[in-house]
């Protein structure tokens, strides 16, 4: 095939002048006469005048949301008003966070939308054998058949009294997610809804959770900040609010100092004042040393932390402090305990040895950061904590914000103001006895077991251990999984040691996946269902957080002229025969289950999801039992779910009488809100959670904790559940912290733990540094040509190549030259790559951008679709290891590899 046709269009000019001589509509009349014998075309009531100038586009900017990363920017999409074709996209002009600024991910969305490699209709596997080397031999089937097959399988499980063998896995979502992710398995009777969260950045939430009680990502007040200290965060490149931070970064550099702790020269590091090229896995040592410097030099924030009663600084290196001499602020507690248990001997020289960063740079950065306080940010990214023992590092890094008083303060670390969205109606009354019995079972990811505390929100087993679900499936522990619905994820590619997922998926007897592209995961599926593209083809809701606000952003089916009309959406809102995972598919499944005698899901939807404006139920709006009517109802259900979710925002009566309204913009009706597509909270009020201002932190003590009191309670709760003590928990989970052991770090205060390596240093002499591609749409952009052509936006990378960056000194020693084909081998796997000699990586490390190595996903993403990978997938060499306190998978820091030329 040619990339660009060489046909000379001039030779058709001869005929263009003749166009008007054929009677308009003559063909249509003939077509009308032929009636239903046509198979591809349909007569129009009236012929239309064509546009003469195809270049000049006009249209409407229609609102939607980009879910290309978790910035979730509010978007506007330019839709051609004649053809309904999507032409351009941009940030939403009304957003007070980013305005029309966006990042390239939004534009890549259009390439995904119009990618010929998309899944265009439901497919069914015809080859019963499953495996990486086995062609699934998919055949197209109708939606009705596909939904029917899934319903049959679910009925079988329920009839056999084993609904717990049903499973749903989730990747990206919108806030309509409970319907498919929570309510569907709940009504069927399975506890097994497994999210992707623990391969995202859960460990990052551990830091703020066990210092200030927020299991949450932060927003950073860059517009008011004087110092930004970024830890493994690359905010102008990846996650979160990239549009806003990229837009502000130039001004930030004018007014503030920016320092980046990162083992490779990241995009943000290239534009910063300081780069601290930390040895992978040792960030915690730097954090402890910086806290040490801040206290030693008396640079802490008195208002937030407290002061010695007599004003004399007793934080002397190597000496412990009598707690009686210090008067804590009402805002925080435990700084003396932190010093005495961890910081007192963590001098910069010690950290320099541990982390490979010069002591004077540690001093300089710590001092600059503290002197700028409280308008200073210790910016925690996933890098330093999605590591073995990363939870404590997250605490140490976040606790620096407490020391300088930037928590919730001007120029510091903020959270999101409360939003005016409602919970979706829940199904408790529709859960029958069969389901209740199933729901009592343990989850397949084994969360909450002694070795997997996953302490989300202070609760033993409160979080997910995503990657361990593969082992649960393979070991049938706690039980077998017989039916899986996976959606908007690619676990066979995106989990560390992803080869385990290939095995696990091959074991599952029936697997339906809902995706836009035929992924590695789809290769193992029995039924592949084509998903709508979130940015252009469906209803949904996400939110953005930045500049002191949170916005509620709508996804709308932008190609339909009247998105409220289900018929218009199905007719014009999608190019191919695709449906929405979170709403339309569960609805159709509910109808199919009702056909088979299980009516609870359908009754739930029909009763609880009327149109809140008209009051009409789904069947009242669209009667009929044929499949087409069901498809229309499914689309109406999708719309209703979003209207119910956002009702306080657009329904004044509901807002005033039925909802605890937090403030923010107010709309008078649905269409007004839907056409704008974005809603703002009130602005974040600085310091409002400080007890000194009348507020409260969400910790167990109500104040900011330097002593880890909330963590103590959580760990003791977990230990108690297993009838053991905290030391046993930490021993089993492979942490160094202990309770009251003078030879070990204290188990509760933020502290440094030495990383343990995944692989022996003699056999695997390099640390592998993985990081995410700037053009990565959460793993979904590899088939877009622009992501490949422009991947040199990642420092060190080159267009169209998948490169392993090696320091020239190491390369020289190994005799590796630029461009050499190399293999990268770890204890768990081996990939092929091309060597790039680059000063931007530490000696002793190999850095490689995550995102390549697809052997499926499309003709651009792979070398040979379904067969040969393009480049190497980092997840093949990264072992399945965990930061067990948070449940997070380890991606960074401690993965050891060997490299050699091929």
């Amino acid at each position, binding site marked *: 095939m040619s990339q660009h*046709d060489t046909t000379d269009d001039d030779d058709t000019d001869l005929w263009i002048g003749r*166009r008007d001589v054929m009677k308009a509509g003559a*063909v249509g009349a003939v077509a009308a006469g032929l009636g239903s014998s*046509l198979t591809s075309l349909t007569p129009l009531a*009236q012929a239309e005048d064509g546009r003469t100038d195809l270049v000049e586009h006009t249209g409407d900017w229609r609102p939607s949301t980009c879910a290309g990363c978790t910035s979730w920017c509010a978007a506007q999409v330019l839709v051609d008003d004649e053809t309904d074709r999507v032409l351009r996209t941009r940030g939403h002009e009304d957003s007070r966070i980013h305005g029309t600024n966006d990042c390239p991910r939004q534009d890549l969305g259009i390439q995904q939308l119009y990618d010929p490699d998309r899944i265009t209709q439901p497919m069914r596997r015809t080859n019963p054998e499953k495996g990486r080397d086995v062609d699934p031999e998919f055949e*197209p089937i109708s939606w009705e058949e596909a939904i029917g097959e899934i319903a049959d399988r679910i009925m079988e499980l329920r009839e056999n009294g084993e609904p717990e063998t049903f499973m749903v896995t989730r990747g990206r979502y919108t806030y309509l997610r409970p319907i498919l992710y929570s309510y569907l398995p709940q009504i069927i009777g399975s506890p097994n809804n497994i999210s992707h969260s623990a391969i995202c950045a859960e460990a990052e939430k551990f830091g703020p959770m066990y210092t200030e009680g927020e299991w949450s990502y932060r927003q950073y007040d860059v517009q008011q900040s004087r110092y930004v200290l970024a830890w493994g965060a690359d905010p102008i490149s990846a996650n979160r609010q990239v549009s806003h931070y990229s837009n502000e970064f130039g001004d930030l550099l004018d007014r503030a100092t920016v320092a980046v702790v990162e083992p490779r020269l990241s995009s943000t590091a290239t534009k910063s004042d300081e780069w601290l090229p930390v040895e992978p896995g040792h960030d915690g040592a730097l954090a402890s040393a910086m806290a040490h410097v801040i206290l030693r030099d008396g640079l802490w924030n008195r208002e937030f932390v407290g002061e010695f009663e007599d004003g004399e600084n007793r934080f002397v290196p190597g000496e412990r402090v009598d707690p009686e001499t210090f008067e804590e602020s009402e805002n925080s507690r435990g700084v003396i305990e932190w010093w005495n248990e961890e910081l007192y001997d963590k001098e910069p020289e010690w950290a320099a040895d541990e982390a490979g960063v010069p002591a004077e740079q540690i001093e300089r950065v710590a001092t600059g950061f503290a002197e700028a306080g409280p308008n200073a940010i210790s910016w925690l990214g996933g890098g330093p904590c999605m590591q073995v023992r990363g939870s404590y590092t997250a605490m140490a890094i976040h606790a620096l914000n407490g020391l300088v008083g930037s928590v919730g303060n001007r120029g510091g670390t903020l959270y999101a103001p409360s939003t005016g969205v409602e919970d979706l109606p829940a199904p408790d009354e529709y859960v029958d006895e069969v389901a209740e019995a199933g729901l009592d079972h343990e989850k397949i990811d084994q969360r909450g077991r002694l070795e997997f505390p996953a302490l989300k929100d202070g609760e033993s087993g409160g979080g997910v251990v995503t990657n361990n679900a593969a082992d649960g499936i393979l070991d049938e522990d706690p039980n077998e999984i017989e039916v899986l619905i996976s959606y908007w994820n690619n676990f066979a590619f995106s989990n560390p040691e992803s080869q385990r997922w290939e095995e696990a998926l091959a074991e599952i007897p029936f697997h339906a996946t809902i995706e836009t592209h035929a992924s590695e995961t789809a290769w193992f599926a029995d039924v592949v269902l084509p998903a709508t593209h979130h940015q252009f083809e469906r209803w949904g809701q996400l939110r953005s957080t930045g500049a002191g606000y949170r916005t509620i952003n709508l996804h709308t089916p932008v190609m339909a002229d009247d998105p409220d009309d289900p018929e218009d959406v199905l007719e014009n809102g999608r190019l191919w025969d695709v449906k929405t995972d979170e709403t339309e598919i569960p609805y159709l499944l509910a109808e199919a289950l009702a056909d088979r005698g299980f009516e609870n899901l359908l009754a739930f939807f029909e009763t609880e999801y009327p149109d809140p404006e008209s009051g009409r139920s789904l069947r009242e709006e669209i009667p009929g039992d044929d499949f087409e009517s069901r498809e229309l109802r499914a689309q109406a259900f999708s719309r209703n779910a979003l209207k119910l979710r956002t009702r306080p925002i657009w329904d004044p009566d509901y807002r005033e009488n039925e909802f605890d309204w937090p403030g923010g913009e107010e709309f008078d009706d649905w269409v007004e809100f839907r056409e704008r597509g974005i809603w703002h909270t009130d602005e974040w009020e600085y310091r409002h959670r400080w007890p000194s201002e009348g507020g409260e932190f969400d910790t167990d003590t109500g104040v900011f904790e330097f002593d880890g009191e909330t963590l103590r309670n959580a760990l003791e709760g977990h230990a108690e559940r297993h009838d053991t003590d905290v030391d046993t928990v930490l021993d089993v989970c492979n942490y160094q912290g202990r309770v009251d052991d003078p030879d070990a770090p204290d188990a509760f205060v933020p502290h440094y733990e030495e990383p343990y390596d995944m692989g022996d240093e003699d056999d695997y002499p390099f640390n592998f540094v993985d990081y995410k591609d700037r053009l990565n749409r959460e793993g979904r952009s590899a088939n877009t040509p622009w992501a490949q052509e422009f991947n040199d936006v990642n420092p060190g990378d080159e267009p169209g190549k998948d490169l392993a960056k090696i320091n020239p000194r190491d390369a020289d020693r190994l005799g590796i030259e630029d461009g050499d084909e190399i293999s990268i081998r770890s204890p768990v796997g081996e990939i092929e790559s091309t060597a790039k000699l680059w000063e931007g990586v530490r000696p002793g490390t190999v850095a490689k951008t995550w995102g390549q190595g697809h052997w499926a996903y499309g003709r651009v993403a792979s070398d040979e679709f379904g067969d040969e990978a393009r480049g190497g997938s980092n997840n093949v060499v990264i072992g399945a290891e965990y930061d067990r306190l948070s449940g997070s998978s380890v991606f960074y820091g401690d993965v050891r590899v060997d490299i050699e030329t091929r």
Partner: protein
Amino acid sequence: MSDTLDDRIAAERQRAETYRLLAALFQPPDAGGMDGLEATTDADVSIAVGRLREAVPDRDSLKLDHAGLFVGPFDLLAPPYESVYVDDETRVMTEATERVRTEYREAGVDIDLDEPADHVAAELEFTYLLVATEVEALDAGAFEAAERCLERQYEFLSAHLGRWISELAENMREHADTAFYSALADEARSFVEADGRRLAERLERLDSTDDDLVAVLEGGENR
């Protein structure tokens, strides 16, 4: 109506039916195209239906091969979209697609598949409609209108279908697992390209000689 004219109309009808059959055969095998093939004789159309019929394998192989060539999900081996060949191999809904859709709508029809307008089946069926319109005009003795239909056919083939049918056919021949889709590739390509040449010759004669339409139609063989 003279015998000659009747013969010419029959021959044009044969052209039309050929496009119609080809359009149906590019659709999924269970969409009726195979029944159409069964019911068609060599005399009805200008392609070798016997050869195609002989090449028809069992229904399952046919479905899988069709899916692999034209649907995916893993092996979209012969993308059935004009945009992929004339604008950008990684893109549907390009300017070319928009031009095709404009052609349809100006002519009074629109795409009725869950596919872009430049899907090969739709372009073949649109050409069929252009020829069928010509046949209707000839039936009514409206020769000027019929002449315009010829122009329109040539214009559509040269601007659209004729530009990419050979590359599509090459992909089909290279990747088809069944003899059927290889044969369909050959038949579709040779018919469409020959038809384009024939239309060009006819229009050239109408432009440059005093021959009338019936004489011109007589001039070209359909095979």
